[in-house]
């Protein structure tokens, strides 16, 4: 498979072009095109059913699109890879519903996510090395979970689970983080902490955040892409897109 000659593509970290997905005739994505530069943090907003989660499913290999191109890091065709291979390339994902390993302790959750050989025999014979332990300690500190390290994932509060999952992403140390509605169901105080966490992460990772919460998006202060009915409606700063006639129409109803 030859990669199309395209300077935009080769410079990008994530490149989606004309992606279309339909489920039993329902068009979840119709010609979605999006480009993310290395190191960029991007917020994606849009009403329910705009295709935000489907987009993440396509990028992570969970859903195969009917049409379109998806490239990562300017050279990897993600449509030819499965979830494991995409994750190993350096794409991390946080789900909408926090999914931590409920029967593992907080620190084991991070250990499992931590960047390390993933082959069966490597994990069978290699224990947690000192370097991994340092990483775990640092991430527990960042995610404010140091005091909870020995508790089971399932015993954490909703907000703590979200932070643990962000911590797992950090441990994975991916080039690109996809974060789906990180503040859904959080209190205002927790939301503020989460925004701070994500900004911290964005310093040395590229991040795509899908979010409903406008106040939270404003707090992030990054470029915003508005999705509507499976394609991009507007792109720009939050103030620019909020002033856009079509965005107002979509959000306020016809």
């Amino acid at each position, binding site marked *: 498979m030859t990669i199309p000659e395209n300077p935009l593509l080769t410079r990008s970290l994530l490149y989606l072009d004309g992606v279309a997905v339909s489920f039993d005739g329902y068009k979840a994505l119709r010609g979605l095109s999006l480009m993310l530069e290395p190191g960029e943090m991007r917020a994606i907003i849009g009403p329910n059913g705009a295709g935000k989660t489907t987009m993440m499913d396509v990028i992570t290999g969970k859903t195969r699109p009917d049409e379109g191109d998806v490239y990562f890091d300017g050279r990897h065709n993600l449509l030819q890879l499965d979830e494991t291979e995409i994750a190993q390339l350096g794409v991390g994902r946080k789900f909408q519903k926090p*999914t931590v390993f409920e029967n593992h302790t907080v620190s084991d959750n991070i250990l499992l996510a931590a960047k390390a050989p993933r082959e*069966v025999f490597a*994990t069978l*014979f290699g224990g947690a090395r000192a370097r991994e332990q340092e990483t775990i300690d640092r991430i527990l500190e960042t995610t404010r979970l140091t005091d909870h390290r020995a508790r089971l994932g399932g015993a954490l*509060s909703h907000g703590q689970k979200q932070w643990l999952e962000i911590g797992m992403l950090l441990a994975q140390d991916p080039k690109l983080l996809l974060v789906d509605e990180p503040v859904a169901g959080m209190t205002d105080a927790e939301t503020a902490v989460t925004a701070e966490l994500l900004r911290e992460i964005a310093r040395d990772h590229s991040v795509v955040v899908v979010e409903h919460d406008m106040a939270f998006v404003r707090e992030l202060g990054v470029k915003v892409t508005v999705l509507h009915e499976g394609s991009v409606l507007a792109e720009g700063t939050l103030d620019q897109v909020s002033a856009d006639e079509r965005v107002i129409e979509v959000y306020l109803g016809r």
Partner: protein
Amino acid sequence: MITGRFLAKLDRLGIAFIILMLAVAIIVPVLALAIPAKSAFAIPPYVVALMGKYLCYALLALALDLVWGYCGILSLGHGAFFALGGYAMGMYLMRQIGARGVYANPILPDFMVFLNYKELPIPWWGFNFFPYAMAMVMLVPGLLAFAFGWFAFRSRVTGVYLSIITQALTYALKLAFFRNDFGFGGNNGLTDFKDIVGFNVQADATRAALFSISAIALVIAFILAKAIVTSKYGKALIAVRDAESRVRFLGYRVENYKLFVWVVSAVIAGIAGALYVPQVGIINPSEFDPGNSIEAVIWVAVGGRGTLVGAVLGAIVVNFAKTYFTGVFPEYWLFGLGALFVLVTLFLPKGILGWLSSLRRKPTPAPPASLAERSTIAEEGGSAQ
């Protein structure tokens, strides 16, 4: 080397279990052989054989717990691996009969002479050689599990569908082994064994030795299983059980994780079957019956899934009850077994072992973790679950 490092990881229950099993491996043969039969402490030979059988079932339960308890693969066909190991041992024992059979053919077992075989079929070659037979005890179930798992896990067959295929696997093998022209003794299976590595299988001393070997095999398998589930691999395995797709998005090859434990489990089940056959004196296609595999699932559920020791406990308790009740009320045993499964599922979802450990924990004050939880909830205005 690896064992030594993992011994440090054993919990108190695990150490107690190992000590108990090793003690049983020594004491039972002593009581069976060295004590005069009239003494109150003497163990009659048939009891030794019966207990040896329980230990083989316990080994099968341990194998099943490894895949079901730790990886969430509910196998309803583990009896197939057990029976294949048993057949491999049976074939060795058949070849040892030699010219002592009814037809006195030095090469061909009786059933082959009866069915007009002219020469030994290729699958039987080498089975007169003990190390080869023992290699087959592990290789045949292991390779079958590898082939089965390779396709099933790669195609992401999970849950009920996987359970149904495992059931079909053991049923298909049962039908195949029932056929006379399949070459493994058909309906009657393999029996009339004479000796094993030169010792008479019927002799009390051989019985006692087989019992001890079964207990030691159980200890070794337990240490191996414990080493697997406490390693980082084991943690990933539990994660696969609880949230499979999440593990995939972390970059783990879930199918390889499943395949490894599945093959290890099948090999342990095969060894269990191989130890079982000389102690019961027969192997026939009914060992492939799906009902046997389901019974093994009940042992694990009764004892406590995902605990290893619980699986062993469940196998021994249920089979002891089976021996007792089939003696006292033979016609009601199956109802009893069904009721036991329903009651355990309803009232002891974590099995006997889970129930015992919850009893033990109750009197102690709430652990610090729950205190910490309460204070966090207070801080955050009660958003915790």
